[in-house]
């Protein structure tokens, strides 16, 4: 199996709005209008989001190193892809994520300490999906996209009875996930049903050690056209381009124009998870190159150009990040661990004879042992 070269960021048809080396936003006929409401204040809030989610991520990595978490999947480098897209959708929309979308969950309003419960090993979820309209981590690669399409089909049905309904479903997944049959089936079902769903691929160049060239020799976005679906490739380290593109795709879905596949080209600057050692499979040079494309620096240069990057602003952002990080750490250390017998709690929603029997034996055994 030959490994094609990794996809290039600078493909001509990649949407980008933040200039790479400072200066103001690029104008784009199609996408700029989607940023009409992004004034200076909003730009600063976006910057804050980027910094805060990176800080949460760093704190979680630290907690893992200290043994407080069993594992952590860092989003370092993917902040713009996640913040931009999360800001491009609405609270009523439903997100089917994978396992790395901590920033999306945070922006959808989850208590950030809940995000860590999963990685600590205290739960398989962390939050109630209906509280923030977002699923908890989906670990089996390729499993969540079909569910998103089904949910979107449900929205379509609801909308037939109530024309005030314009929700959509959004699903996140990685470049590796695009090889799974479930992904293609999801594109097929979405295209043939015209369901209001946005497929958001974070192409961070790697599936653990596998460079994206192992999955595909052409840009992932191209997959869409095979199903007659709209596809857009966007610079995933450009938070504003991601925001605009997501809003565009979401609006298409909302107004009945069907699904869109977005490929956000970004880079996983950290390890796959805290168990991973990326030096075994990638060069220092590559990482160094992508550090020059850091999504936070990228926005910062525009803030600087506009004179918004005042010491005051930057200090306030740092303070906010510190506060959230402290909250996350505190929440983690205060985690109330599940009771042993919780194993039996929610296997079924209705009584089940075997579960009752095993639970009784379990309690008996452990009570017996304690006496």
């Amino acid at each position, binding site marked *: 199996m030959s490994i094609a070269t990794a996809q290039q960021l600078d493909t001509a048809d990649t949407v980008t709005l933040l200039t790479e080396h400072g200066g103001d936003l690029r104008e784009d006929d199609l996408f700029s209008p989607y940023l009409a409401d992004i004034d200076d204040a909003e730009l600063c809030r976006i910057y804050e989001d980027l910094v805060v989610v990176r800080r949460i991520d760093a704190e979680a990595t630290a907690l893992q190193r200290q043994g407080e978490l069993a594992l952590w999947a860092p989003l370092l480098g993917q902040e713009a892809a996640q913040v931009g897209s999360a800001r491009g959708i609405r609270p009523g929309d439903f997100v089917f994520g994978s396992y790395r979308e901590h920033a999306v969950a945070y922006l959808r309003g989850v208590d950030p300490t809940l995000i860590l419960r999963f990685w600590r090993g205290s739960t398989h979820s962390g939050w109630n999906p209906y509280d923030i309209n977002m699923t908890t981590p989906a670990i*089996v690669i390729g499993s969540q996209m079909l569910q998103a*399409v089904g949910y979107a089909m*449900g929205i379509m049905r609801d909308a037939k009875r109530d024309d005030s309904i314009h929700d959509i479903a959004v699903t996140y997944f990685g470049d590796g996930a695009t090889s799974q049959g479930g992904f293609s089936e999801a594109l097929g079902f979405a295209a043939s049903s015209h369901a209001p769903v946005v497929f958001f691929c974070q192409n961070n160049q790697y599936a653990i050690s596998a460079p994206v060239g192992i999955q595909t020799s052409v840009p992932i976005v191209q997959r869409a056209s095979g199903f007659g679906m709209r596809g857009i490739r966007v610079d995933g380290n450009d938070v504003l381009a991601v925001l605009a593109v997501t809003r565009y795709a979401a609006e298409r879905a909302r107004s009945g124009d069907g699904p869109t596949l977005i490929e956000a080209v970004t880079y996983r600057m950290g390890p796959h998870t805290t168990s991973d050692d990326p030096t075994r499979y990638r060069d220092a040079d590559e990482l160094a190159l992508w550090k020059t494309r850091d999504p936070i620096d990228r926005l910062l240069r525009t803030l600087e150009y506009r004179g918004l990057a005042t010491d005051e602003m930057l200090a306030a952002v740092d303070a906010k990040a510190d506060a959230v990080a402290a909250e996350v750490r505190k929440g983690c250390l205060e985690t109330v661990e599940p009771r042993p017998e919780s194993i039996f709690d929610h296997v079924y929603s209705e009584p089940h004879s075997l579960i009752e029997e095993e639970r009784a034996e379990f309690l008996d055994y452990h009570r017996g042992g304690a006496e």
Partner: protein
Amino acid sequence: MAKALNAGLRRSLDDDDRVMLMGEDIGRLGGVFRVTDQLQAEFGADRVVDTPLAESGIIGTAIGLAMRGYRPVCEIQFDGFIYPAFDQIVSQLAKIHTRTEGAVTVPLTIRVPYGGGIGAVEHHSESPEAYFAHTAGLRVVTCSNPDDAFGMIQQAIRSDDPVLFFEPKRRYWDRADVDLDAAPTVGLYDARVVIAGSDLTVVAYGPMVATALAAAKEAASEGTSIEVIDLRSLSPIDFDTIDRSVAKTGRLVVVHEASVFLGIGAEIAARISERCFFQLEAPVLRVGGYATPYPPSKVEQYYLPDVDRVLDAIDRSLAVE
């Protein structure tokens, strides 16, 4: 039985407008066994949906629909075609309620015509129930007669837990007068003593209940009194009903089409051998498929348990003193 299922599905669609049917060829064609005949015409293509040809896609999207509040009933066209959906069933459907600590329920019913005996080609005569019964988070039931078919399918659809609903396809053409106004008198997960007896208990389910009854009849004519239990639910299993029977008869034969090795009978034999250790007068015997793939139809009668093989096991059990 196909008609009874059709009536049960119609009733469910009528009772609850969140119920919807999904599957390959279930709409315009009414299903290859006509179980969904006319339902698309009656309820519309939005509620009786002809899907693309992808079982994983069917179950995956149905899970999403369930999360949005719908109650999908998915048809898998034949037993052997459920495996492409295995991941969605075993890693998603079965686990979502536990994963979310009860926050999300997935009231999905998967209808699976199963079993052999209809002279079909490869992959059309499988008995995959043990895979699902071994999977925590799923419920697995199967009907053996039109009455149960009518009642149980409605109960399954009303359940908030995911239910695998196995339909014995060789019994689809069995006829009976089904009272469409009767509410089910038995719980979905209860076994039923079909005929009482005192010498030996035969436990069967789905397609094999009729076989067990025929064997019991023949045994009766030779003076042996067999108690036949229709298991109905394969997960959970109603062991209390089996226990009670074995306490009385002291002998047990379990019959199913699936391979004996790690089939449902293994769990029954294991558990009853434990629970009734001092009541059993003979080892629990199992009659079932061999540890081979389901054979070509010209020799399927040698693979499938039949009345003679059940009688042989009964004799062997009774021979133990």
